[in-house]
């Protein structure tokens, strides 16, 4: 096998590039945003086009409490990541578990709302266009919250076993980017479904 015969002068100190984890997470967020955009467009396009009831105005209730839960979880994960970057593991774990609790609470809220819609109002994904677009948009978001919670829980377990330190700070920041994104999507979904859509 032939060998490399070319050598380059070794210079250029201070060559710094962005962290690959954050760049990749940004890429994933762009891709996910495009998926959500399509679902949001479908929701808006089909507003008021259902041939049968129930209509959004009749059955939807604004989930203000659970929205506050999810949005404040963005704040707690931000603090958690900041504490980890400074090496304060105890505070990191505390805020991290708080984030999980808030995210879990939000999912519980969604579950409760769906239960109410299905059993009290008979609205399922196949009832009408509203059902189809509502469950798929909110469900897609709920799926992302669930996926985020699985990742957060994994980190929590690793953290409780003492495997998360300042070295993992970059990974944790990438993960918190994802969680912020999930929250930001909820702002859009909330606006579209509960504000504009009623």
């Amino acid at each position, binding site marked *: *096998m*032939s*060998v*490399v*015969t*070319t*050598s*380059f*002068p*070794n*210079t*250029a100190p201070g*060559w710094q*590039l*962005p*962290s*690959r*984890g954050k*760049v*990749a997470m940004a*890429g*994933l967020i*762009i*891709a*996910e945003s*495009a*998926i959500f*955009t*399509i*679902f949001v467009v*479908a929701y808006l*396009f*089909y507003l008021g*086009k*259902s*041939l049968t009831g129930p209509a959004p105005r009749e059955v939807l209730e604004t989930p203000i409490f659970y929205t506050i839960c999810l949005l404040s979880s963005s704040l707690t994960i931000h603090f958690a990541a900041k504490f980890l970057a400074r090496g304060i593991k105890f505070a990191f774990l505390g805020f991290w578990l708080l984030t999980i609790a808030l995210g879990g609470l939000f999912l519980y809220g969604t579950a409760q709302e769906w239960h109410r819609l299905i059993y009290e109002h008979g609205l399922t*994904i*196949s009832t*009408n*266009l509203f059902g*189809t*677009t509502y469950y*798929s948009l909110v469900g*897609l978001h709920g799926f992302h919250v669930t996926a985020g919670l699985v990742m957060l829980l994994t980190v929590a377990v690793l953290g409780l076993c003492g495997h998360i330190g300042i070295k993992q700070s970059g990974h944790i920041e990438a993960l918190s980017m994802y969680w912020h994104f999930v929250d930001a999507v909820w702002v859009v979904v909330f606006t579209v479904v509960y504000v504009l859509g009623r």
Partner: protein
Amino acid sequence: MSSNAITIPGNQIQSRPWVDELHQWVTTVDHKRLGILYILSALLFLTIGGVEALVIRIQLMHSHNNFVSPEVFNSMFTMHGTTMIFFVAMPVLFGFANYLVPLMIGARDMAFPRLNAFSFWLSFLGGLLLYFSFLGGSGLYGAGSAPDVGWWSYAPLGARAFSPGHSSDYWTLSLLVSGFGSIGTAINIIATIVSLRCPGMKISRMPLLVWMNLVMAGMVLIAITPLSAAQIMLLIDRYLGGHFFDTQAGGSAVLWMHFFWIFGHPEVYVLIIPCFAFMSEIIPVFSRKPIFGYPVMVAATVCIAFVSMSVWAHHMFTIGMNSYANSFFTLTTMAVGVPTGIKIFNWIGTMWGGRIQFKTPMLFSIGFLFQFLVAGLTGIMMAASPFDWQLSLSYFVVAHFHYVIVGGILFALFAAFYYWYPKMTGRMLSERLGKWHFWLFLIGFHLTFDVMHIPGVLGMPRRIYTYEPGRGWDTLNLIISIGAFIQAIAILVFVANLIISYFKGAKAGNDPWDAWTLEWSTSSPPLAYNFATVPTVSSRRPLWDLKHPEDPDSRYE
């Protein structure tokens, strides 16, 4: 200069049992091996998709032919389109990107090697899933086998009522799975280019191939995902009783068209931009001149990416949009021709006054330039909505987009094969077989796709199973089919060349073309770690600087 290969004790050279070798290929996370796997899987599907094209052409060879049944014919054109776009063009371009991008930016691998392997296997298994429909597509209902509702699966054809059984499910799932693979690879390419460039490789010094693959990967993130979203909606319709595209419940068939083409048109640019990338590397080397107008090329690429996101509805002029939408999409579509034209002028500017070497890669590149220009011109014709109303859904359209995909993308790919094969295998492809391949393919291509415009103008609709005699289509269709077979022979010559040269080709050495980008500074094929010492660059042509220390490019930056 001292030799700087890393000496690894043990068995780099010794041959292993083939099971070990196979195991290594299946479990590899090396970007070069994955790149080759992408390319090989694409060649496999190219053969299958090519056979499907031949079946279509035999069926249309003369009027009232019944070589295959109408049902088989429908699944043939559906599978041909789906295969060629998703399981040939995408993987082969990802393969080259995978192989070349890290080498060109002086990196040792992609940013996420395991994600890379995962993405490849997703795409490949997506292809297998599509073809499993031939066996499993009838499902419990005993109806249908391979997907047969066209590669765009327009609503309501994709709905349960019109494609019973599981054929459309296989189509949906395979595109969803391979779509996730594409997104993974795109993220990987972006992260690699942004975060792993070697010292000195500023974004203004990146080879154009790297630039264009960065733009391509960015487009994949925005363009493939709407398709994935639409496929999820279709699955909800088919399995959960949703009504997204169910017109009986107020759903809209046109919405599916919009979602499909929001993916579909940028997809064309996702495929052609890496081909522009090949041209931008190959033409300068064989013209012995640096690329003309580097910054303008980058700007034009980014410009194409932006504009191409807003042209999709030119595929839908015939559905009856209002005049504002028609005018908007006519204008944007024509606007996309401007940056594309800039590129063509830049390539000609590169060749102008150069000492052009007519090696096989250059022949294919020149073929690309000419044919891509013609394809662009028929594109401009179709962009005018009144003209499109007349010729949409005719063979004129089929001729136009095959001119882009075969005359443009495939010619550029062949150029890339001849150019980088020495790097990938360490052997040169035979020039003699290469010339045969080029001329046979060129003749076959022009026989098929030049002539194909005419039956379109005469009113022959696309996708028809057969036609009446005496409409003036018979002779033309016969010529088209003969051309298709000449192309098939040319492909056989190409495959023979790939195989023979692998064993008997002349040794390539590190830098057979006297080129200027970093991949030619390492051995052919490169060792697993690419570069023993990570290179440092100070201009756009690092190898020129090394070969000409008295007159380096860096002096003029």
